């Protein structure tokens, strides 16, 4: 390895790399030395008379590092021994100690298991048939459990599982009951005949607060939760399955402190903005890194630019400003990932947990682990559910009478006559001029978004296997329709396969997971919510003849934007997504494991959007140019290979873990788009070749490569003092020559103070207490590819018949990572025998080296160049999580869990802000979520117009002199409260989410009150009407929109958008065990689940989370049944 890197790396970088290579070599050398010591040279020195076995075993443990596992009760009566060991080999010493004792031993890995000698076969009696039961014990994640007690019920015949979770116990017959127990897990009893040789038994975490998930997956390694030094939030499959949604991201809303998820709309498959601990970057990516089964998963929507205008399904546009409610749209790449296939989701937050992800971990990491098969009888799980979804809340809009009153007053206020079609035949105020039927009164919300969406979910899985090989195959199907008029639906189907195999000697493991998702989304490109502002007297959507009602007048349509025409436009977005991961694992020597993972992802999305001319009113309904067809196809491919070597060894009083590994990753993305128009008939729009005008957009192609070397050293002293050091050296193709590589690392420490002698017993109510501190760096390489290259782009406009080439940008080949320094203090407490579990964190993340467009004088030919600015963003916050077991009896349990996040964001410094394009966007010392807007001064009692504070006496504000800094338009704090009740066979889980935040008022989304064909919320009924009125709503107007525009950019437009939402409730009934037995079922239950049941808010609008005129998150209620066979 040494030699290899020496030859391959170019000189300038060699020294730094050398050091790392040296370190690696050293680590491996130490590891190998330790292994040989452990295997060949363990000697015992001890001289003692009348030593008890317990004393001797402890001595051996101290001197050799081997764990000696024995049953205290069994050896209590054993004979004492006189020993005199001088450099005696371990095995010899053990033989001596157990000589003449009814025990024998077995060395397995680091463990010495003391077992009873098989009872000598009596000579006289016929042999009692005795059998040997052997198998493996794992936790719910499938991780082997060490030290689980396996006991013949009611006897002292006992053993413990070894490092691989393997146990062997000899029992009299197959009717013997075996008891499996371990602290923190539910005890399980099984009859020997129900345990096939080599089968795996899974212990469930017991219902104490702390122990729901015992083993944490930190991506490259696992850690016992108790011993972790990092900040990690976990959502288990139980929580996920209760939520009737098809996007796993939505199921995470409010569940984890520090994790903020914001839906862009209630349209199925819409994109959500995900942030862990705030916004760390001004110009580059702020999304966390998503990992599914060890493979990085593309979190960007593959939706095409062609669909930019379509709300909900468009491409995630460049956010004009961080914190804009609709910072991203497009189709969620997670939509269609079956929640039922997910075992758990972990959210890694601090440096300790994320630094091993190096340049990709800046914004936190979300690890999704899918389910694996379990040994045992082949099991079939099936479930089906059906449900409905509706818009939970409509805005109170004006009725026709109020609306017309508003319109009339608007004309009067503007000094205009009330329009009349009889007087002015070309007037187009049809809502009021007498052309439309003013006796009509339609609440357009009910017509356009008032339908009921239907949901169907079905899933089935088969799992099983033996001790060596386990499998799980699961399939799921989801279909949902929309609340819009018309026939729209979104169908997803998924297939999940997990295969695991171990060699007979348990040293070789292979695991394959493969997922295939198909999403066929035919939802409208158009969000009908846009049109709920129609005048309440607007005509019916369809005429009596069933055709679209354009309401012609003299052959021109007065209702030309009839939204029902959208139902004639078809859009489809089909994605096929395959991702799989192969994991090979081999234990070369005890504790030394060589492993490699291979991941692959192929995701294709093809979209089309067809507009027939018939969806337009005459005269365009026959115009070929109004027949258009847009096609787009995007392919995204990733592969990743990660070989690694890990070593685990007991040294002195603690366990040392070493890990080194490397990563090779490549992403490719290709997109092509075509559009055509000028079809001679609506029937031809499906064939793009039939269009007389064809536009081919420039293809895009990006390649990304990433490599790294990472390592970890962790040591815990006596499970009391914990130390975890991680480091990573990363290379990314997003940086120019000699800037590809960067180093990141973190140190995490923990102190379990309740294990100190001075505390044990002192506070009987405190059974667990840990203080964590971590500090480290991660980087952000989420930036546009190729920016370091000096390139020309094609300008399709030609000169002398030659298409132009234009310089793409100024190039700075020297830019490098944004570096985030994360500091964290954490406290974990377990009270009253773990019935109360408290976890609190304070964090401070500072991002330096911000990679932004450095403002340049335009004399350079451009106004910016990509540059690392010493601009600093700071995110600080407090997070708390409290889990309690309030009540626990045989029949009734009640547990609660609360999480709370108080985030704070600040732009600490930004050199050159005044000359940059951010000069009226951000301010030093302020949150990134502020606006620089005008100061709202209320409605002028004399003129009835909105006013803002101005330096100029004429009342017309100007930028930048009149701008003030608004409070941050973002969350002030947020969290969730879960309560879970179970009584006998019934269970009820309720999850309430709360968000305290500022948002934008309804005024921005509705037109100016009084302007044609635009309805308003009833809040405008308080508008100013005559001089002297004090009102907060300006006078209705038919013409003046200037003051309204200033209002829209003023502090008056910022409003409280806090809410408390019953996010989720789930009620289930487990069928009685006797029924289940008689029907050969297990885990059979029926359930009722509700999502987004109701919201308490003072916000005026459809929904305080999505705001604006977009479809709000739907209220979904589903009923279903599931069972295993």
């Amino acid at each position, binding site marked *: 390895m040494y030699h290899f890197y020496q030859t*391959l790396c170019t000189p300038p970088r060699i020294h730094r790399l050398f050091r790392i290579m040296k370190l690696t070599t050293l680590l491996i050398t130490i590891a190998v030395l330790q292994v040989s010591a452990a295997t060949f040279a363990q000697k015992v020195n001890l001289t003692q008379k009348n030593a008890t076995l317990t004393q001797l075993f402890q001595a051996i443990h101290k001197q050799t590092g081997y764990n000696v596992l024995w049953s205290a009760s069994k050896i209590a009566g054993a004979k004492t021994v006189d020993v005199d060991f001088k450099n005696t080999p371990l095995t010899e010493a053990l033989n001596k100690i157990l000589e003449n004792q009814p025990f024998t031993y077995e060395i397995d890995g680091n463990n010495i298991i003391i077992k009873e000698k098989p009872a000598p076969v009596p000579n006289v009696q016929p042999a009692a048939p005795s059998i040997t039961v052997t198998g493996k014990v794992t936790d719910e994640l499938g991780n082997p459990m060490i030290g689980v007690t396996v006991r013949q019920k009611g006897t002292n015949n006992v053993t413990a599982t070894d490092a691989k979770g393997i146990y062997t116990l000899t029992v009299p017959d197959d009717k013997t009951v075996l008891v499996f127990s371990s602290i923190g897990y539910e005890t399980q009893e099984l009859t020997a005949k129900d345990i096939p040789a080599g089968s795996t038994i899974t212990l469930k975490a017991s219902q104490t607060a702390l122990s729901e998930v015992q083993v944490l997956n930190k991506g490259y390694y696992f850690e016992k939760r108790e011993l972790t030094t990092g900040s990690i939030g976990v959502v288990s499959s139980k929580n996920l399955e209760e939520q009737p949604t098809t996007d796993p991201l939505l199921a995470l809303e409010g569940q984890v402190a520090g994790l903020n998820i914001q839906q862009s709309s209630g349209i199925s498959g819409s994109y959500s903005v995900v942030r862990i601990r705030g916004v760390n970057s001004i110009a580059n990516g702020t999304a966390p890194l998503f990992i599914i089964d060890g493979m990085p998963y593309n979190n960007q929507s593959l939706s095409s630019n062609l669909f930019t205008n379509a709300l909900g399904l468009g491409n995630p546009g460049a956010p004009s400003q961080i914190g804009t409610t609709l910072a991203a749209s497009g189709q969620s790449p997670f939509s269609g990932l079956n929640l039922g296939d997910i075992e758990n989701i972990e959210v890694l937050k601090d440096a300790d947990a994320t630094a091993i992800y190096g340049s990709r971990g800046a914004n936190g990491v979300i690890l999704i682990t899918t389910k694996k098969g379990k040994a045992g009888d082949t099991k079939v799980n099936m479930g089906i559910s059906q449900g409905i979804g509706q818009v939970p809340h409509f805005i109170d809009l004006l009725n026709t009478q109020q609306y017309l009153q508003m319109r009339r007053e608007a004309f009067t206020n503007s000094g205009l006559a009330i329009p009349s079609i009889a007087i002015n035949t070309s007037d187009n105020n049809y809502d009021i001029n007498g052309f439309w039927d003013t006796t009509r009164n339609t609440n357009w919300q009910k017509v356009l978004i008032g339908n009921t969406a239907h949901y169907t979910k079905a899933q089935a899985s088969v799992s099983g296997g033996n001790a060596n090989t386990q499998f799980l195959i699961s399939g799921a199907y989801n279909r949902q329709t929309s609340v819009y008029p018309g026939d729209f639906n979104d169908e997803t189907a998924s297939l999940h396969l997990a295969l695991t195999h171990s060699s007979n000697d348990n040293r070789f493991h292979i695991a394959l997971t493969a997922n295939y998702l198909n999403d066929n989304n035919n939802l409208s490109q158009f969000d009908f919510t846009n049109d709920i502002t129609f005048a309440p007297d607007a005509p019916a959507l369809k005429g009596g003849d069933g055709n679209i009602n354009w309401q012609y007048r003299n052959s021109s349509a007065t209702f030309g934007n009839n939204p029902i025409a959208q139902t004639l436009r078809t859009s489809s977005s089909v994605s096929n997504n395959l991702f799989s991961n192969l994991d090979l694992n081999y234990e070369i020597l005890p504790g030394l494991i060589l492993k490699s993972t291979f991941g692959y992802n192929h995701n294709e999305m093809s979209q089309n959007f067809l507009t027939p001319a018939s969806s337009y009113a005459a005269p365009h309904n026959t115009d070929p140019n109004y027949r258009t067809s847009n096609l787009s196809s995007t392919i995204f491919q990733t592969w990743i290979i990660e070989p690694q070597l890990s070593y685990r060894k007991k040294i002195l009083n603690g366990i040392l873990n070493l890990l080194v590994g490397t990563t090779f990753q490549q992403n490719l993305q290709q997109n092509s788009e075509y559009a055509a128009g000028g079809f001679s008939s609506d029937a031809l729009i499906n064939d793009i070749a039939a269009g007389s005008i064809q536009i081919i957009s420039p293809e895009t192609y990006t390649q990304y490569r990433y490599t790294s070397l990472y390592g970890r050293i962790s040591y815990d002293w006596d499970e009391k003092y914990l130390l975890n050091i991680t480091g990573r050296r990363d290379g990314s193709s997003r940086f120019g020559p000699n800037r590809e590589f960067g180093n990141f690392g973190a140190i995490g420490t923990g102190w379990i103070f309740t294990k100190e002698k001075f505390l044990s017993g002192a506070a009987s109510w405190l059974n667990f207490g840990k203080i964590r501190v971590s500090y480290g760096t991660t980087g952000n390489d989420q930036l546009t590819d190729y920016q370091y290259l*000096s*390139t020309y782009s094609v300008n399709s406009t030609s000169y*002398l018949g030659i298409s132009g080439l234009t310089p793409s940008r100024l190039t700075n080949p020297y830019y490098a990572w944004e570096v985030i320094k994360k500091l964290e203090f954490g406290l974990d407490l377990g009270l009253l025998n773990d019935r109360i579990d408290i976890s609190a964190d304070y964090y401070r993340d500072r991002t330096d080296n911000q990679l932004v467009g450095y403002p*340049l*004088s*335009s004399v350079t*030919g451009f106004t910016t*160049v990509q540059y690392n600015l010493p601009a600093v963003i700071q995110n600080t916050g407090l997070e708390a999580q409290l889990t309690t077991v309030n009540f626990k009896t045989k029949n009734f349990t009640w547990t609660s869990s609360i999480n709370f996040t108080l985030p704070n964001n600040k732009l600490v410094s930004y050199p050159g802000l005044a000359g940059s394009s951010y000069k009226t966007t951000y301010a030093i010392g302020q949150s990134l979520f502020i606006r620089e807007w005008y100061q709202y001064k209320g409605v002028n009692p004399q003129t009835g117009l909105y006013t803002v504070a101005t330096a100029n006496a004429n009342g017309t504000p100007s930028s930048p002199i009149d701008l003030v800094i608004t409070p941050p338009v973002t969350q002030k704090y947020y969290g969730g409260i879960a309560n879970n009740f179970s009584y006998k066979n019934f269970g009820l889980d309720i999850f309430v989410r709360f968000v305290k935040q500022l948002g934008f008022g309804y005024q921005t989304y509705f037109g100016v009150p009084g302007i044609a064909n635009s309805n308003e919320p009833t809040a405008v009924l308080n508008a100013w009407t005559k001089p002297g009125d004090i009102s907060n709503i300006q006078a209705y107007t038919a013409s003046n929109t200037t003051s309204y525009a200033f209002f829209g950019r003023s502090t008056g437009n910022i409003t409280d958008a806090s809410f408390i939402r019953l996010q989720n409730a789930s009620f289930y009934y487990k069928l009685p065990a006797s029924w289940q037995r008689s029907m050969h079922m297990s885990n059979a239950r029926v359930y009722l689940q509700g999502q987004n049941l109701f919201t308490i808010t003072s916000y005026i609008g459809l929904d305080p989370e999505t705001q604006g005129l977009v479809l709000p998150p739907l209220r979904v209620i589903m009923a279903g049944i599931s069972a295993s066979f």
Partner: protein
Amino acid sequence: MNKQPSNLKNIRYSFFLLGVLLLIISHFSCKKFVQIPPPQTQLVTTNVFANNSTATAALLNIYTLIWTNDDTYGTAQALGLYSDELTNYSASTSQIQLYTNSLQALTPATNTWANAYKYIYASNAVIEGLKNTSGCSPAVKRQLSGEAYFLRAFWHFNLTNIYGDVPIILTTDYTINNTVTRSARVQVLQQVVKDLQNAQSLLNPNYVDGSDTIATALRVRPNQTAATALLARAYLYLADYSNQNIGYYQKADSAATAVINNSNYTLAPLSGVFATTSKEAIWQIQTPSSANENTWEGQYFILTGAPSTSGAGNVTAISPQLLSAFESGDQRLTNWIGSYTTATLPKVTYYYSYKYKGNSANYSATNIPEYDTPIRLGETYLIRAEAQAHEGNINGALADLSIIRMRAGLTGYNGATDQVSLLRAILHERQVELFTEWGHRWFDLCRTTTGGTSNAALLLGPPGNVCQAKNGIWYSDNHQLLFPIPQTDRTNNSNLSQNPGY
């Protein structure tokens, strides 16, 4: 449980895994792995100049940008408003600021500064790219770098006339360009001369097509004569009206003579001066393929209704000052000035610049009647007339002046022939001949003025007069002679000084 490890199996697994590991690592070196090829959909700069056709595309695109960024109409309109050619009707702040000579450094009224430096950057990129390549043929290299020098000179010339002292940019290196200081106007003009001499020596005498070598009738790429014509203009400005540097007048004279003596160029009838087939045109800018109108001048000067009160297009009319400058019988008044009279009472007539007659209404991609014409023979005659007047060659000056007058249907010049009267007549002729073309009028007003007072017996009167005629306020410090340096540029490059008074 079977605890008999099979050594054979272990070895097999180990070898398998180690093999995989080594294979992976040996495949990639740490650094090479992340050095990816450039994207297929973008061209890396070095590759652009590695062959004739892409290098040509990089150069020709500058013309496309000049057209699409609307610098032709933009400059003509802004400087027409700033001087006394146009009356403004727009409520747009920048139009008002231009019209009332009250520009603000914080909110630039035009994009000229940024756009000019954009073209200069692109030109420098071509010059540098061609210097370091062996991929282009020598003839192509000469033509393209000649055009790049020409464009660099053209934009520096415009900049220094509008902003006074300006940075001279001769490289693409932003680390240099972002710390640059302003150079004195004379230095800038000398650099312009140097670049144009370079261009003269490099450019093809013929107009070439997209192949860079084959001659074509279209005059949409500068040739040697275009460089010479622009050189004549630069010498005239360098001669410095107040200091009367005769050496430069002689150079202007001989450069202009070289152009005039070239039989490829003849004065065209008034209606055909700007035509695509014009023999008067020395350098035109082709209407690019994506256009929906013939020229921006046609699109935005021609009024088809009353002038608009917002925005920057169709918002101006010919000023009364310009209208009254025409002698009776001047065909330019009838041919180059159009009028629109409102249909409703009271009827108002607006006059507009009608040099370019095509707009979107009569646009056809296959038949574009006229192209933007930044340099034409008519101006060259007037350059020579002015230079000769200064040299004392009265007859020569008279002859050139008369040629221009007679083309407009007037008699030859028969006024006083003393130098001052003659110069005044020449400058007047420039006013009515070159109106609404690339700011000639404003440049003339400025260059004939020193310290606010017009010399040579107040040929045109102080520029402040034109301001007061528009009810603007002219300050006694005469700072309005120059546009302000955009404030953002000064914030981002603290070495850039501001023009006094702003």
